[in-house]
């Protein structure tokens, strides 16, 4: 009797202990779920960096784009995940006193062009059509991989645009514009095709805030260098190069990003404070109403850095050399040597053969519609004037 009472007490104690442990497990699970709601659920990062201006005096726009490219590469996004579009070549421009360089700070302190740059769309390829095709993914089938934005529904995309703009439009290469409505529709297409998880849009042009006014797709955060009615100003000229090197907003963004490393916990609220009116002269703006998370929980590295899912395993895997192919091909070489006659190189300028070559017979094409129509008209006029009786002499 005493034993059973002790036993029941032990059972209840064990039961109590088990309940406690289950309870703590449940709360930690809820905490995990709550934490995940604040953490981003992306698995890969992409960046689309666009400079839309041509001509030497727009050096600063190329420098803007290259400084963001440099930061993004430094924080981990590889070239295969960056689509870089530069509308003109400043580095090897004949007017550049130091070829193969693009500087962002005067006195040539920082070369943002670097030694390892890969430009995907350059010069005349930077058009509104190509930009929208890259965003929406509707590209001709023979486009190489480096020119595609192969994002999926778990990608965080950073889109940076710079150039000359106005109220509601951005100028591409002095010959065409993209409007804020087109851009908003392109983002909606991306959302419907599940081409992004979250999108950060940064624009450094005059009246940049007008470009994000019309966005209506979810999960987009936008930053601009100036409000509607304001101009974005350039930073400092370099007397040796002769042009302004950077725009103010991107200059201070670059200085901010230089402090970031892949492990930083800096969040978006710091990026919103980057260029106050005293430094930038224009008022930078931002838009977060379409974004689900609170900006203070969004890390800078969610967009500027690169997430790599790494699983560490402790089991060893041994790699076998591919023996079968090596053996068989070696034998084939030996066998073929005695059978084939020697090959020879072609003669580079066989004069006799060239002079006497017969011209290829041209493919016969039936006459086109215009010629047929013209002859029909002539024949009709002839028979109308001279009467139908001439027909029997022809046919």
């Amino acid at each position, binding site marked *: 009797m005493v034993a059973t009472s002790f036993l029941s007490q032990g059972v209840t104690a064990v039961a109590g202990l088990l309940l406690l442990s289950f309870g703590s497990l449940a709360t930690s699970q809820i905490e995990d779920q709550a934490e995940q709601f604040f953490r981003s659920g992306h698995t890969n990062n992409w960046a689309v960096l666009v400079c839309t201006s041509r001509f030497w005096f727009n050096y600063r726009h190329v420098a803007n784009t290259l400084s963001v490219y440099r930061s993004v590469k430094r924080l981990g996004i590889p070239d295969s995940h960056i689509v870089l579009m530069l509308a003109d070549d400043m*580095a090897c421009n004949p007017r550049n006193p130091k070829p193969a360089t693009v500087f962002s700070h005067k006195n040539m302190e920082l070369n943002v062009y670097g030694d390892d*740059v890969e430009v995907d769309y350059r010069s005349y390829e930077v058009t509104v059509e190509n930009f929208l095709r890259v965003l929406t993914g509707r590209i001709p089938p023979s486009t190489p991989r*480096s020119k595609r934005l192969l994002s999926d529904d778990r990608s965080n995309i950073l889109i940076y645009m710079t150039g000359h703009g106005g109220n509601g439009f951005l100028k591409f290469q002095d010959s065409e514009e993209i409007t804020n409505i087109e851009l908003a529709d392109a983002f909606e297409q991306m959302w419907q095709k599940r081409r992004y998880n979250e999108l950060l849009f940064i624009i450094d042009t005059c009246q940049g805030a007008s470009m994000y006014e019309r966005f209506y797709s979810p999960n987009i955060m936008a930053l601009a260098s100036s409000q509607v009615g304001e101009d974005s100003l350039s930073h400092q000229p370099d007397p040796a190069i002769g042009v302004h090197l950077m725009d103010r907003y991107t200059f201070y963004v670059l200085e901010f990003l230089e402090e970031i490393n892949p492990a930083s916990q800096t969040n978006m609220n710091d990026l919103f404070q980057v260029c106050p009116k005293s430094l930038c002269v224009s008022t930078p703006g931002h838009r977060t109403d379409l974004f689900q998370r609170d900006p203070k929980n969004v890390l800078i590295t969610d967009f500027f850095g690169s997430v790599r899912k790494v699983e560490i395993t402790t089991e060893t895997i041994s790699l076998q050399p591919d023996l079968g192919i090596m053996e068989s091909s070696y034998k084939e*070489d030996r066998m073929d040597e005695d059978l084939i006659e020697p090959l020879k190189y*072609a003669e580079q300028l066989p004069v006799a053969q060239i002079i006497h070559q017969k011209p290829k017979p041209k493919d016969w094409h039936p006459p086109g519609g215009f010629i047929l129509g013209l002859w029909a008209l002539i024949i009709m006029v002839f028979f109308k004037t001279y009467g139908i009786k001439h027909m029997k002499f022809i046919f």
Partner: protein
Amino acid sequence: MAAAVPLAVLALLLLGPGGWGYAEPLRDSLREELVITPLPSGDVAATFQFRTRWDSDLLQEEVSHYRLFPKALGQLISKYSLRELHLSLTQGFWRTRYWGPPFLQAPSGAELWVWFQDTVTDVDKSWKELSNILSGIFCASLNFIDSSNTVTPTASFKPLGLANGTDHYFLRYAVLPREVVCTENLTPWKKLLPCSSKAGLSVLLKADRLFHTSYHSQAVHIRPVCRNARCTSVSWELRQTLSVVFDAFVTGQGKKDWSLFRMFSRTLTEPCPLASESRVYVDITSSSQDNETLEVNPPPLTTYQDVILGTRKTYAVYDLLDMAVISSSRNLNIQLKWKRPLENGYIHYQPAQDRLQPHLLEMLIQLPANSVSKVSIQFERALLKWTEYTPDPNHGFYVSPSVISALVPSMVAAKPVDWEESPLFSSLFPVSDSSSYFVRLYTEPLLVSLPTPDFSMPYNVICLTCTVVAVCYGSFYNLLTRTFHIEEPSTGGLAKRLANLIRRARGVPPL
């Protein structure tokens, strides 16, 4: 017993593949080479060549293991059934007149020509897809190649590799002259190299020096070659070439001394471990001609002589795989110095300052016998201010004649004369040396026609403007600001009264 036999078989099996691994020859090999050529104009040309030869027939067997041959290009060859591919990206123009003939010249911009295999059915479609893929690999706008800038040459561009039939239907050629070459094209080109700018000759490939040149040309050539002397089987050869010409004044600051460090801001430290040959050749042909000796430092261990492009040339050879070459200082910085004999020439040039002083050019030169020497100066015509024109500007402006003062060797020795005794015509110039006589000659003055403005234009403009202002603006002004008053007629002056008197006398009504 039964267990021992399988054990022996197992041991044999284990040893067998290992044995094959040691005996099998390497399927691909890399040779790298740099040729430094001092050019007659004082510049220096450097030509890099990286050759990967792959002893495999890509088109017949399924290849999955790529070692030195880059996978991107190997897959391209098998997918599009290429026989040959030649792609070059060039900035600048090779000036044959000043620099001599080039090893391999390329047109400015991008040039792509491709021979397809006989098995390709739709050549144009393959050509279009190939140019798109290459634009992605080399970051160039080769996707602009389409039927509007592609031709099929019928006589030239025969295959440079092995060919058993040359039906020009399978050849396509396109040039994009507007294409720019910059670091973004050099980066993927370098990544195709097996040692990829980490070791060997490719450490010298730094973009900020390579693009500060008068001529920069990088190319990729793929072709099938003979595998051995009997030429019974085919290997694929990939050659990556890069030619640059460093300008004497921009890079060399006017001095004709060159070194690897001055050209590339790097020196060579080690050969590429994957290369079977890694050599630097320096052209020292001119060390025996022209009284100019070219000194190469460190002195080469071997030299190489051959007939290149029609002339006999001598090269100093530095083999990086030879331990003696990079032994002492752990790096190799080849220096070229010109040892000129005493200067027996003189040049003085004073450039002009606008409206202050003219150009002055004086040269002391020794003219060789039985020859024609030409001295030429380039000039540009500038616009003058309109008050500086003469009343007859269409006549042109005169440039003063040039002067040649020469000591001409005389055929007969003259004896020094006493000025008072000899006639006047023989004592114009003092004679110090009886073997030559002094003479001063002048050329014709040059008449240059400068662009002449139309001097009647100011008058025309003033007339037209004043007319327009008077007619248009004046009329409006008058209409807007003129007010009308009713005016009493005046009672008349003296003349009117006298006239009325006379009219009353006549019986006519008064004014």
